C-alpha cells in the first residue's frame, strides 16, 4: 500500500511542489497520475523512493515509513518499487539481457536464477529473442519494454512508469499500456504518470489529477466514463 498523509514538499524557499497532499493507493491497484507540467508528479515518485524528503507529512510505501526509515533499509524499500524512467536509462554497452540481469546482480541474485528470470521477463514484455541485441538496435518502444522488464526484475510490489509513452507512436504506446495492465494482473500495484489522455481514456482505470501540488480530482476506475 502507498499512503501519503498531509504531505508537503517545498524546494528551496518558495517552490511548493506538493501542498498538503493526501492519497492512498491500495495493493494491486492500477492508477494514472495526470496533471500539467510542474504539478508535482515526479516529486511524488521521488518522495516514494526516499530520493527526496518531504517538508512535512507522512509517507508509507509497501510497509516502510519512508520519512523515518533507517538508512540501511532504504535499499530494501527501493527493491519493492520498480521504476521505468522516461529516458529508459538503459546501458548502451550492455546487451538487453545484461541490462535486465544488471538489476538482479545488484541485489545479489545468483547467476543461475538470473538467467531463468531474464528469459521469463523477455517473454512477458514480448521481446523473446532480443536478449543479445544492444539497445541502439531496438526501436524506442522496444527499449521502453526492456526498461519495464528491468523494473520488474527484482519482483517489486509496485511499478512506477514516469511518462512511459512520451515520444512514442500510438501503436507502441498502446502496446506498453497493455503490458502494464498485464503486470497489474500479476498482483502488482501499477502507477503510470502520463500526459497521454487517450491511453487514460482507453484503459478505464483510476485517475488522480494533480495541479499545483494538490489532488484536484480522484476518479475511481470503471466510473471513468460516467463522471466525465
Amino acid at each position, binding site marked *: 500500500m502507498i499512503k501519503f498523509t498531509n504531505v508537503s514538499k517545498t524546494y528551496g524557499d518558495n517552490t511548493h511542489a506538493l501542498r498538503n497532499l493526501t492519497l492512498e493507493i491500495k495493493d494491486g491497484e492500477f492508477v494514472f497520475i495526470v496533471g500539467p507540467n510542474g504539478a508535482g508528479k515526479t516529486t511524488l515518485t521521488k518522495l516514494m523512493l526516499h530520493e527526496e524528503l518531504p517538508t512535512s507529512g507522512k509517507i508509507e510505501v509497501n510497509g516502510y515509513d519512508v520519512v523515518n526509515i533507517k538508512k540501511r533499509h532504504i535499499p530494501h*524499500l527501493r527493491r519493492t518499487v520498480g521504476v521505468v524512467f522516461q529516458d529508459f536509462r538503459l546501458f548502451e554497452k550492455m546487451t538487453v539481457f545484461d541490462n535486465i540481469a544488471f538489476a538482479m546482480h545488484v541485489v545479489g541474485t545468483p547467476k543461475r536464477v538470473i538467467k531463468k528470470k531474464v528469459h521469463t521477463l523477455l517473454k512477458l514484455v514480448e521481446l523473446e529473442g532480443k536478449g543479445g541485441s544492444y539497445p541502439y538496435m531496438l526501436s524506442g518502444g522496444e527499449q521502453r519494454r526492456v526498461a519495464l522488464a528491468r523494473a520488474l526484475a527484482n519482483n517489486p510490489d509496485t511499478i512506477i512508469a514516469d511518462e512511459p509513452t512520451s515520444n512514442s507512436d500510438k501503436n507502441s504506446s498502446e502496446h506498453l499500456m497493455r503490458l502494464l495492465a498485464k503486470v497489474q494482473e500479476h498482483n502488482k500495484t501499477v502507477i503510470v504518470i502520463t500526459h497521454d489522455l487517450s491511453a487514460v481514456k482507453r484503459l478505464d482505470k483510476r485517475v488522480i489529477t494533480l495541479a499545483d501540488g494538490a489532488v484536484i480530482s480522484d476518479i475511481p476506475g470503471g466510473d471513468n466514463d460516467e463522471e466525465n
Partner: protein
Amino acid sequence: MRKTKSIKLGYSLKLALNGLFKNRVMTFSSVLVLFSCLVIMGSFLLVAVNVNENVNKIDGYNKIVVFAEKDTNDYDLELMREALERIDGVESVVFKSNEEALEEQLSEYNLQSEFLLEMYRDDNPLKDSFVLTYEPNASVETIKLHIDNTVDHVAKYNINMDVVTQINGLKNAFAIIASWLMILLFVVSIFVIINTVKLSVYARRDEIALMRYIGATDLFISLPYLIEGLIIGIVSAALAFGAQFLLYKYLMLDLIGRYDIITIIPFAELRNIIILGFTVIGIAMGFTGSIISLKKYNKENA
C-alpha cells in the same frame, strides 16, 4: 546465502579490475607513488635500526658511570641503586664494587698478583660505582638532573657528553627528515589514489545512480572501489617488499657490510616487520583513498 555472497564478491572484483585497467595510467601512478613511499619509509627504518645497532656498540654511548662517595656503607649503596633504578629511561644498573674495579685495573696493567690485591684491599683508592645503561631515546639531560636531585652519596659521574650529543643530534635530524618526507609522500599517495578511484567512480556514475534506484546497498556499490584501493595497496606493498629486499641485500649487506667494524642486521631478522608494516600501511592507504573518494562522490551526488 553463501553463494549469493561469493557472486557479489566476484562481480565486484571484476568491476574493480576493470576500473583499474581502464584507468591504467592513474593506476600505475598510484602504485608507483605508494611504492616509492613504502620503499623510502622502509629504507629509512632499516638504516635507522642499523645505525642504532652500531651506535650502541660505541663505548661510552648510552652508559653513565656513577661513583659513590668513599666509604658509603652497604645500606646507602642499596638506596643509591634503588634511586638510580627509579629514574625514567634507565634500562639497567650494574653495581661494581671498588674491589672489582681494582681487580679490573690491575689486570689491565697485567698486575694480577694476589699480593697487590691484598695490599690495597684495606686501603682501596678506588670508589664503588654503578654503571647505568639508559634507553637509546632517553634524554641524558633529564637523567643527569635526576641523579643530581634524587640520589645521595654521589661523588661524581662520567658521561661522554660529546659523543652523546653528536649522535643524538644526528639521530634527531635523521628522524625529522624521515618524518617529513614520509608525511609528504603519504599525502601525495592518498591524493593520487583518491583521484584514481574518483576516475573510475566517475566513469560509472550512471550505473551507480541506477544501482541506487534499484536498491543496491551502499556496500555493494562501494565494494568495487574499496577493492580497487585494496589492490593498489597490496600490489604496491608486494613490489615495495621486493625492492626493499634487493636494496638491502646489495647496498647494506654487500656494500656496507663489507667493513668489519659495521654490523649489518641480517634481513631475515627484519623481514617480518617489513612485510607487516608494508601490508598494513599499503592496505590502509588504499582503503583511505577509496573511502575519501567515495565520501566525496556521495556528497556531491546526494
